[in-house]
């Protein structure tokens, strides 16, 4: 199917909106747009970060997911208590595949679930006593933990427990950081506010812990990798490139990260932001308080990697600049072989994405390196500044959809007929049953890493394996295939 023109895309949006009642139609129309590269600001064409409409199937998460699942969860040597009923922590346990090194249950706790398991009694009488007891118990059972964070679930805010007081008392008792995080699920419109709350909690309770302590030896090449959650090993694939060019990675926020790394971050020379949406708040804070500049970078696909490495190097002296060139040169043969192998098989294929807060724009470059085209993209919880950055990355007259509903996404895919859809697990089986090749772009479909040059090879292989899989030809029952294709089969 040929690319849609601007008019066709607009007509498609109108057609999809047709089914909604008047008010819902008016609201949803603001979230769907046709990309126009000539625009400087996204607020001229799309509205984002607004409350989802009751009755539509949104794909968003909650503030607790943003704080416990994304920002705090991967900090491996802390214990994160899911404070509230047992379900929130248990059903999201270890689902995000933030890889880490360590012995789980001894000095790292990433895949474990700690919860205060609220019951009726705790709602009626308050859960503060229980929380204090948990902190004491944790210290006894897991003495090698380096700190505790209290991730509030909805009821904590509703019944008005004073977790800050418990945290302060706990901190005195165990002499390790105890961080209360007010990330009750009902706050905000999506997980995005959870990221912000988590960032603020790090700012208020952790970041300044080593101010005035100069015992940590620094070098002029210290950087921190911020907003890389090490999904399937992503942060490791990124880190090797940075270290190879001569930089010293002091901290990983927060994939495979530790609380000591976070406390040492104010001593770095430059903050490197991968996931802008979830961690720009803390980077801006460090810029103001510690005068540490920050830059965004993108490690998906060789074009963007080279661009990013050079941009990172431009903040340092010539040895690093040479280092960047050396790294790009070293991997050149490797990634060109990947492109030579997969580009002929993937050239011209069209992709629709619907992901969280950075990948809807970051992975476009990687697809383009393989000769593929992204024809639609959208954020679950992006804000205006994310769309500002997306407009230039996307082609003209492509679809933009913010907080897309289940119905809209299905209809768009039916009409645009992409060769691949990249989204999350909730969308996966709908599209696979429709016979559309699908990759999970949150968890890399249990593959990865996709960052860095090493990741690009895996990315290319995975996309090829999905799109060119023979199973898609078998989706339709044999007795339902039409006569024309039957004839081809006989002839063959």
């Amino acid at each position, binding site marked *: 199917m040929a690319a849609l023109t601007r008019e066709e895309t607009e007509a498609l949006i109108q057609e999809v909106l047709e089914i909604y009642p008047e008010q819902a139609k008016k609201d949803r129309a603001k979230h769907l747009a046709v990309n126009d590269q000539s625009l400087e*600001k996204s607020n001229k064409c799309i509205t984002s*970060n607004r409350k989802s409409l009751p009755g539509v199937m949104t794909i968003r998460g909650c503030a607790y997911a943003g704080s416990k699942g994304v920002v705090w969860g991967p900090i491996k040597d802390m214990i994160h208590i899911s404070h509230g009923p047992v379900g929130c922590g248990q059903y999201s346990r270890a689902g995000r595949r933030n890889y880490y090194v360590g012995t789980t249950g001894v000095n790292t706790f990433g895949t474990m679930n700690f919860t205060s398991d609220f019951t009726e009694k705790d709602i009626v009488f308050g859960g503060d006593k229980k929380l204090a007891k948990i902190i004491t118990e944790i210290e006894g059972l897991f003495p090698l933990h380096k700190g505790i964070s209290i991730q509030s679930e909805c009821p904590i805010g509703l019944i008005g427990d004073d977790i800050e007081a418990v945290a302060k008392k706990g901190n005195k008792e165990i002499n390790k950081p105890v961080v209360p995080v007010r990330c009750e699920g009902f706050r905000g419109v999506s997980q995005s506010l959870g990221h912000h709350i988590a960032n603020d909690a790090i700012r208020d309770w952790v970041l300044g812990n080593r101010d005035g302590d100069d015992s940590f030896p620094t070098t002029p090449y210290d950087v921190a990798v911020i907003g890389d959650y090490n999904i399937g090993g992503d942060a490791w694939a990124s880190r090797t490139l940075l270290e190879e060019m001569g930089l010293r990675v002091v901290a990983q926020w927060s994939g495979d990260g530790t609380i000591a790394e976070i406390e040492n971050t104010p001593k770095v020379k430059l903050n490197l932001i991968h996931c802008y949406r979830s961690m720009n*708040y803390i980077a*801006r804070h460090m810029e103001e308080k510690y*005068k540490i500049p920050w830059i965004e970078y993108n490690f998906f696909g060789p074009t963007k990697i080279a661009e990013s490495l050079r941009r990172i190097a431009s903040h340092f002296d010539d040895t690093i600049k040479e280092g960047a060139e050396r790294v790009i040169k070293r991997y050149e043969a490797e990634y060109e072989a990947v492109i030579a192998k997969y580009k002929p098989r993937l050239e011209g294929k069209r992709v629709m994405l619907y992901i969280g807060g950075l990948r809807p724009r970051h992975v476009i470059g990687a697809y383009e390196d393989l000769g593929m085209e992204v024809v639609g993209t959208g954020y679950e919880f992006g804000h205006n500044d994310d769309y*500002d950055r997306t407009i230039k990355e996307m082609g003209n007259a492509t679809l933009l959809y913010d907080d897309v509903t289940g119905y809209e996404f299905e209809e768009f895919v039916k009409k645009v007929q992409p060769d691949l859809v990249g989204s999350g697990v909730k969308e996966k089986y709908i599209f696979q049953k429709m016979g559309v090749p699908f990759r999970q772009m949150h968890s890399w479909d249990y593959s990865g890493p996709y960052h860095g040059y090493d990741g690009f090879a895996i990315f290319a292989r995975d996309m090829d394996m999905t799109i060119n899989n023979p199973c898609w030809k078998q989706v339709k029952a044999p007795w339902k295939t039409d006569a024309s294709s039957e004839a081809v089969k006989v002839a063959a």
Partner: protein
Amino acid sequence: MPSVMLKKNPEGKLVFYVPKKDLEEVAESVEFDTADKWGGEVLLADGSKYYFEPIAMPDFPITLRAKRLDSGED
């Protein structure tokens, strides 16, 4: 009275950021921009205007309170 985070971009221009509104915009002009007096009316690239109480030249980046004068939309 939004809190505004101000910083200088690599080109030396003032960048205006309001976290609550996701507003990230370059300032076109600042009324007073000398070493001992900084502030007054600030015009942004999108046409909106903000007012800062004039102070001595601050050390950017910094967060300051601003008064919104004109949204630029009407």
